[in-house]
């Protein structure tokens, strides 16, 4: 079985995001970019499935600016066998919407015929939480989102999912789209020899035109603003003081 893992290049999760004063967006020039944390988890799971013999090939795909190549090299260093880069933007500030990403991934899947797609639950930049679900709709495949455990059993996968009330287990027909939640696994770090080896692994470069997909956005971003600031608070010196402040406010 082949596993496809879509990985997105995003602002590193440790970087403090700065909103541009003119409301035109977030400043992404010269900030540290990394693989979306959920995609690292998805990639780790794919590699583990391969190590267990449940898969024989792991293909990483990224859509975005050409620098997404670095993200794909990280995926290859973790253990992916090959990578596909679809260059769909020339400015880092241009985000490709989940619907367009899903259409491109569908086109790749039509070519590659994987048995499983493992994506991240959510990209931590646009916080959409949508691409996997949209992709499975376009393919007419089953979906198991927010996975914290995956067992492949023949032509089905049994997936435990993180939901509002706790956990739900479902059994989905393969091929399936599964999205990784935080507790699925702990991703490995790529070792130096593997980073060197990754440089020689195949990385195909494509464009949306190769797949005949229109990536024009459906949503116009009118403006991007800072969230409302909270008024400065105060430090209290004791539990008694805290209790009396809360009583004053009438919240306890």
């Amino acid at each position, binding site marked *: 079985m082949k596993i496809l893992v879509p990985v997105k290049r995003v602002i590193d999760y440790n970087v403090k995001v700065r909103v541009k004063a003119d409301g035109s967006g977030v400043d992404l020039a010269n900030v540290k970019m990394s693989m979306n944390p959920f995609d690292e988890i998805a990639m780790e799971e794919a590699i583990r499935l391969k190590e267990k013999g449940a898969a024989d090939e792991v293909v990483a795909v990224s859509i975005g600016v050409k620098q997404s190549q670095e993200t794909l090299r990280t995926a290859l260093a973790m253990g992916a066998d090959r990578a596909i880069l679809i260059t769909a933007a020339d400015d880092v500030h241009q985000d490709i919407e989940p619907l367009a990403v899903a259409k491109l991934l569908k086109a790749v899947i039509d070519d590659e015929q994987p048995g499983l797609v493992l994506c991240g*639950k959510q990209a931590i930049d646009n*916080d959409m939480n949508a691409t996997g679900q949209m992709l499975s709709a376009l393919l007419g495949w089953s979906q198991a989102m*927010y996975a914290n455990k995956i067992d492949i059993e023949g032509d089905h996968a049994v997936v435990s999912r993180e939901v509002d009330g706790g956990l739900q287990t*479902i059994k989905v027909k393969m091929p399936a789209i599964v999205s990784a939640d935080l507790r699925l696994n702990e991703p490995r770090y790529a070792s130096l020899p593997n980073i060197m080896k990754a440089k020689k692994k195949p990385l195909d470069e494509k464009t949306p035109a190769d797949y005949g997909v229109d990536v024009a956005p*459906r949503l116009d*971003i009118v*403006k991007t603003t800072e*969230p409302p600031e909270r008024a400065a*608070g105060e430090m209290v010196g004791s539990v008694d003081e805290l209790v009396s402040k809360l009583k004053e406010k009438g919240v306890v």
Partner: protein
Amino acid sequence: MAVLLLAEVNDGALSVDSTAKAVSAVKDLGEVHVLCCGASCRTAADTAATITGVAKVRCAEADLYGHRLAEPVAALVVSIAGDYDHIAAPATTDAKNILPRVAALLDVMILTDVSGIVDADTFERPVYAGNAVQTVKSKDAKKVLSIRTANFDAAGQDGSAEVETLSPAEDPGLSEWVEDKLAESDRPELTSAGIVVSGGRGIGSEENFELIEKLADKLGAAVGASRAAVDSGYAPNDWQVGQTGKVVAPDLYIAVGISGAIQHLAGMKDSKIIVAINKDEEAPIFQVADYGLVGDLFTVVPELTEKL
């Protein structure tokens, strides 16, 4: 045209709070029709009919909908989508699972976690873990949106809408439910509680988490946790507050032994009053706190529990 609101129905019961908040969010977009589906959902539909501002409830009962699997519920929504310009739902994990599937089947973009509605085409949503708010205008013919309910007040319950029976749509037959492991609790639900007490890695163990639970019970509060507390096994996953957990905005949020990483703040910084208890005076949580207390939680929390 009207708005279709997919209600959260679990085991035949309506999640009244999230539905009522979503109704008040979308009511200016048009006549609100609530869709209830489940193995049995008559009671839920009758409850939905009482929410002020609901014009009609459509109730689809079939075993197929018993566990809110994405494929059949999305197919049901799509089967009636022609009647609506807007399709919305409170942003629960179920709706986040289902709505993007609906949107893709309709070939439209999804608007997730909408925190403000400007007009019929224009919406606000937080991005970058709530560090920025985007205003977006949709060019699509239909808008599919999930609503961050913490930002809206619940509609009242003095309505009496008609309840219509809806025939089930086709079963895509792609997935089956196996089991639920849901936490049983007498405490208020995290996303609708007036007070939330949350613990972080500083609590140190599952046993120690009892300190947090005792304080919460004293206050009639819900219990929350940071991701570090959940990952360390001190608290169950459904308690996680944050960018990738639950978003809460109670009247009072008490953060104990939580440093205040942006991913945690994303889930609680709209709370009305924030109290932080941490032994590290430099902890970033103090920057968003209305009242900060520097101290060892193992002495502060028992004392606070006693004095409240």
